[in-house]
């Protein structure tokens, strides 16, 4: 070692980011501008939807919960306003999730990482926590000073106070989640009186911790290191995707207004005020180009526009701009028409898939049957010989009533001459061709049904038929097999 090979170029790695680089804190400066105000609006909207939704009431009559959006795990029902999803209809939820995925592709191809910049919960809560920082500790410089200051009693007190606020926000966030899974007012009361299910407290605890940790401390590290979406972005973005662009052909070479006077060459518009860096919630320098840490929230645009306004130069040195437009601008050409960029094959295909799935779901929602039956034949014994020579077969019949009220129905059989039915709480000699039954509201009623047919009946297929005898009507049927000593007719 220490034998210097003159062909080797010594590279100084000491300034590289190590694999386990210690995090440099991000202390974004307060900024104002159209994008910041848009971000405030989206944040308010997201938080309002998150906290408010479980408290919306929705009248569904006496047999169903009165909560507009409710995921009722215990009873396996998912309520969303006028739509009620049963477990066997879970494909609706799967369809919604697929739509959400395709929707993300659609939004990304149309307007870039708008989700990351504005609506992602990590972004919303990080933004909220960073605002708490500015309220408690002061703006960027005050925060930096406090960060470097030794741990005095006063610093400890301020940190404890701030973390207390973090925790309160985290608790309210984690606590709100459980209201989607039970009647909100009831659960709220039970929660505070210690009557709620342990799982409610555990869920609140876990989500309080994750919010506290991810929003209060991890922040931009979640986006840079933990989230797969920025990686997927690299495959999603193309030359027509909207990204935050520093127009270096206009800004470089950078230099302050003073140094511009001394410079032998004319300087660009960038006065190197570093406001774009100071306001960035993920702590990057956008002037280094598009990068994984850029969530395209546009706050640097607001900051740069203000700087440009202050020194009387045109806005938009940093701006939302597609790669294609960037090239055109460098060549002095006008931007491509916005509509043409927006409605291109890629976005249209995504929109087509997205809308197709949506329409298919709506169609199925309109078509689905609210009354149904399913029949399972007994395997053991397959048939039973009765003393008079008749044969009976046992079945488990499930009557499904998806309406929020009890319904009178008639269960009968067809295709089995002389056949009659009775249930396991009836005497065997009380069999009759059809049974009138009540199916409870919003429930599946399980019945043990015996089908008895006279001596000499041939094995074969027959139908169970279900008919609602209320004003609404509706019917269903299910084919099954009658087995005798001769087999099942197949």
């Amino acid at each position: 070692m220490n034998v210097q090979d003159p062909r080797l170029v010594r590279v100084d790695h000491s300034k590289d980011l190590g694999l386990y680089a210690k995090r440099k804190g991000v202390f974004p400066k307060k900024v104002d501008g159209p994008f910041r105000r848009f971000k405030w609006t989206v944040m308010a909207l997201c938080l309002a939807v998150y906290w408010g939704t479980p408290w919306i009431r929705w009248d569904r009559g006496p047999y169903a919960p009165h909560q507009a959006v409710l995921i009722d795990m215990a009873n396996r029902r998912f309520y969303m306003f006028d739509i009620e999803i049963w477990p066997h209809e879970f494909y609706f939820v799967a369809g919604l999730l697929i739509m959400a995925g395709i929707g993300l592709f659609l939004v990304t191809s149309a307007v870039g990482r708008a989700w990351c910049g504005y609506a992602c919960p990590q972004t919303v809560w990080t933004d909220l926590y960073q605002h708490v920082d500015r309220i408690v500790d002061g703006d960027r410089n005050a925060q930096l000073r406090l960060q470097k200051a030794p741990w005095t009693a006063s610093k400890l007190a301020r940190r404890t106070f701030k973390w207390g606020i973090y925790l309160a926000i985290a608790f309210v966030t984690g606590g709100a989640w459980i209201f989607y899974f039970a009647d909100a007012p009831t659960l709220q009361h039970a929660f505070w009186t210690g009557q709620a299910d342990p799982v409610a407290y555990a869920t609140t605890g876990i989500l309080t911790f994750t919010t506290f940790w991810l929003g209060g401390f991890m922040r931009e590290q979640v986006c840079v290191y933990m989230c797969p979406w920025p990686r997927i972005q690299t495959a999603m973005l193309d030359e027509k995707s909207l990204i935050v662009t520093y127009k270096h052909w206009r800004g470089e070479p950078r230099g302050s207004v003073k140094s511009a006077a001394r410079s032998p060459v004319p300087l660009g518009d960038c006065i190197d005020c570093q406001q774009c860096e100071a306001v960035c919630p993920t702590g990057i320098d956008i002037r280094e180009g598009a990068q994984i840490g850029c969530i395209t929230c546009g706050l640097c645009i607001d900051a740069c526009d203000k700087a440009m306004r202050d020194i009387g130069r045109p806005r938009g040195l940093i701006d939302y701009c597609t790669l294609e437009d960037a090239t055109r601008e460098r060549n002095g050409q006008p931007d491509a028409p916005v509509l043409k960029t927006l409605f291109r094959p890629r976005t249209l295909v995504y929109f087509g898939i997205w809308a197709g799935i949506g329409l298919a779901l709506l169609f199925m929602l309109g078509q689905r049957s609210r009354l149904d039956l399913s029949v399972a034949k007994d395997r053991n014994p397959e048939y039973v010989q009765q003393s008079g020579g008749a044969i009976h077969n046992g079945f488990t019949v499930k009557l499904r009533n998806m309406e929020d009220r009890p319904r009178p129905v008639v269960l009968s059989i067809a295709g089995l001459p002389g056949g009659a039915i009775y249930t396991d709480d009836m005497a065997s000699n009380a069999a009759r061709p059809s049974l009138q039954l009540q199916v409870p509201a919003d429930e599946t009623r399980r019945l043990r049904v015996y089908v008895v047919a006279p001596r000499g009946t041939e094995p074969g297929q027959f139908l169970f038929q279900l008919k609602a005898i209320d004003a609404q009507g509706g019917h269903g049927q299910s084919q099954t097999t009658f087995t005798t000593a001769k087999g099942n007719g197949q």
Partner: protein
Amino acid sequence: MANEPRIDEATGVETVGHEWDGIEELNNPLPRWWLWTFYACIAFALGYVVLYPALPGLTGATPGTLGWTSRGALAADLKAAEASKAAVRAQIAAIPVEQLAADPKLLRVAIEGGRAAFKVNCVQCHGAGAAGSKGYPNLNDDDWLWGGDIATIHQTLQHGIRYPGDDQARQSQMPAFGRDGILTPAQVQDVVSHVRVISGEDKANGSAQRGAAIFAANCAVCHGANGEGNRLVGAPRLSDAIWLYGGDRASLTETVTNAHAGVMPAWSQRLDPVTVKMLAAYVHSLGGGEAAAPVAPAEAPAQPATATK
């Protein structure tokens, strides 16, 4: 070979102090989060070893200060499961078995409880589907030796059939007509012929006519003049389509010659009263259950009809 650790000027990282042919190793520390997780695991393991059974010995593991055992955990779970059923079991205990049907919800619980108990206690003889086998009655049909309303089934379950340990067990004994020499083998064949005629298996012939007289003298007292059976003594109905020991000539000959007397244990001696009640509800629900009247309507007209003949 071991040199003093030194700072590598290219990376600014300390070396471990070893060198092989000019190659040195940098002493990059483990990530701190990893280290702390590792220490936390060690701390957890120490606590676990103290609190729970952990270190293997010759005869068993160290017990642990919490006294936890998997057997104890199972016992606690079973106890909790029992406790959760206590209320509904008390309800079933309080209600007479023939009134169970009046409470559909309770009946449903009883049937399901009976289904579970049946799978443990009864399937060995009666089969998983309660369809029985030779000598063990099929419980799905409407042919009952001792009666098929729920109270009678309950009575049979409680005290058993020909069970030596219970005074109230159902008792009866068919004579071994052939073995004990009451009938000659030829007479036995004639009776068999007659029985196959009244059950509709064969057409009448000379042997059956001779058998009819023998039947009237020896068998009708229990099985009825027309072979309609008698539930008071558990004498099977011979005129129907169901045979407990087989309806072909060979099986019938064997039955008449040697007689059969199946035994069922008195379940009240083995199971708690609520479980027996639930079993009765389950067996009654299998498709052959009769209405609660003590005499089944099908039987009533059969008796006067015999009398007029």
